[in-house]
């Protein structure tokens, strides 16, 4: 469990992952993207069981192996060594994406370059002329998984908002994200716009508004 200090401002990466983990129902089939989303697996609440899917062909993915036990033929979608849990299974890519595209995976947690107020997600390409486009399974996940959560820093390293009215980067999918976990707040994508569900410690609604390029609806108890 993450400890929140009295003088803390904002959430750490681990705390964002923990918040997302708490919003995943018991018994869910879950696909975790590369990066911060991978940390979600460390914060499964007591009494809940999640089954992890990784799109290269494994259901029942376990944690990374202890040093020296890595198997180069047992990897996740990020090509890192993983383990398999009891009851886990291996399958080929068409079966793996049948799970994703056929609506059999309940939740995926992804990173983002931008998310719009409508839930549009951009996370695969800057669209720059010299960029090598690399999509992997991102477009399949957002099209097929029942609920798409995003974990991201609220702004870029330069301070530009990542939560925007319209994405300027090429979309991974339109209207696909349901919830966004940032270092400053938790946002729900609603038909009326982005609603702040929770503010991070030491963060005001006004500060979030200032760092967001889209209108926000205040959470209960905030103005």
């Amino acid at each position: 469990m993450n400890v929140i200090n009295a003088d803390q401002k904002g959430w750490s990466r681990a705390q964002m992952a923990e918040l997302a983990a708490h919003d995943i129902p018991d018994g869910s089939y879950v696909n975790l993207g590369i990066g911060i989303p991978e940390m979600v697996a460390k914060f499964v609440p007591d009494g809940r069981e999640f089954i992890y899917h990784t799109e290269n062909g494994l259901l029942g993915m376990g944690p990374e192996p202890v040093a020296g036990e890595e198997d180069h033929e047992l990897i996740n979608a990020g090509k890192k060594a993983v383990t398999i849990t009891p009851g886990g299974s291996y399958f080929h890519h068409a079966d793996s994406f049948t799970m994703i595209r056929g609506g059999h995976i309940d939740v995926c947690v992804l990173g983002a370059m931008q998310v719009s107020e409508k839930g549009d997600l951009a996370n695969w390409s800057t669209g720059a002329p010299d960029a090598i486009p690399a999509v992997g399974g991102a477009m399949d996940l957002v099209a097929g998984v029942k609920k798409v959560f995003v974990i991201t820093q609220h702004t870029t390293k330069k301070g530009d908002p990542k939560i925007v009215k319209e994405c300027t980067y090429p979309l991974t999918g339109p209207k696909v994200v349901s919830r966004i976990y940032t270092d400053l707040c938790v946002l729900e994508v609603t038909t009326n716009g982005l609603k702040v569900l929770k503010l991070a410690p030491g963060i005001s609604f006004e500060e979030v508004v200032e760092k967001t390029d889209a209108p926000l609806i205040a959470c209960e108890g905030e103005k």
Partner: protein
Amino acid sequence: MIDKRKSTIAEVIADIHDGATIMIGGFGEAGSPTELIHALIDQGAKDLTIINNNTGNGEVGLAALIKQGQVKKMICSYPRSSHSKVFPELYRAGKIELEIVPQGTLAERIRAGGAGIPAFYTATTVGTVLADGKESRTIEGREYVMEYALKADYALVKCELADRLGNLTYNKTARNFNPIMCTAANTTIVQAHKIVEVGELNPEMIVTPNVFVDWVVEVTEPQIESQMIAQGVSYP
């Protein structure tokens, strides 16, 4: 008598012609038929179209084939590679074509190719630039994009166990694209970690039934790409 075993890799690769379309199994290094790819480099066929999830690692396997200038076009989902500048440099110099395909669409196009289904509709890419110029259709209120099947002249595949009839099993996540590629190529060439007697493979455990396989070569000690890269190996 049916016997799909061959004793050398060179003889199963020998007929691959210039301009061939080749599916190569593997996801990163897992399930990559490195010895078959190196034999293709030795054989020298060029102007190839290669279908693989990635573009190879370091300067071995698929990355080495690309570096040799034998590949005209890559069809893949994720051309960024670890420890490899081979593809990005050629791509930025305009010396290699790229068709970017979402991973699930890539898998389904191969599956469809093997199943005799010429095209299908999918929700993947709807509303994105990757749907530009493609036919779309609304079915039961949702928009879908049409994608064509993929087929190939050859599939190069790595498996764990095989028998002389061409039945195959795989190892863990090295399975990935290999079984579906076996189904979608005119000629499927397999490197097996071990060839066993017919009847030894449990029929309930056979992943690729032998009808999909043409040639099997035993490679008892396959090279591991990440180890070769760590040792600074550059093929040939």
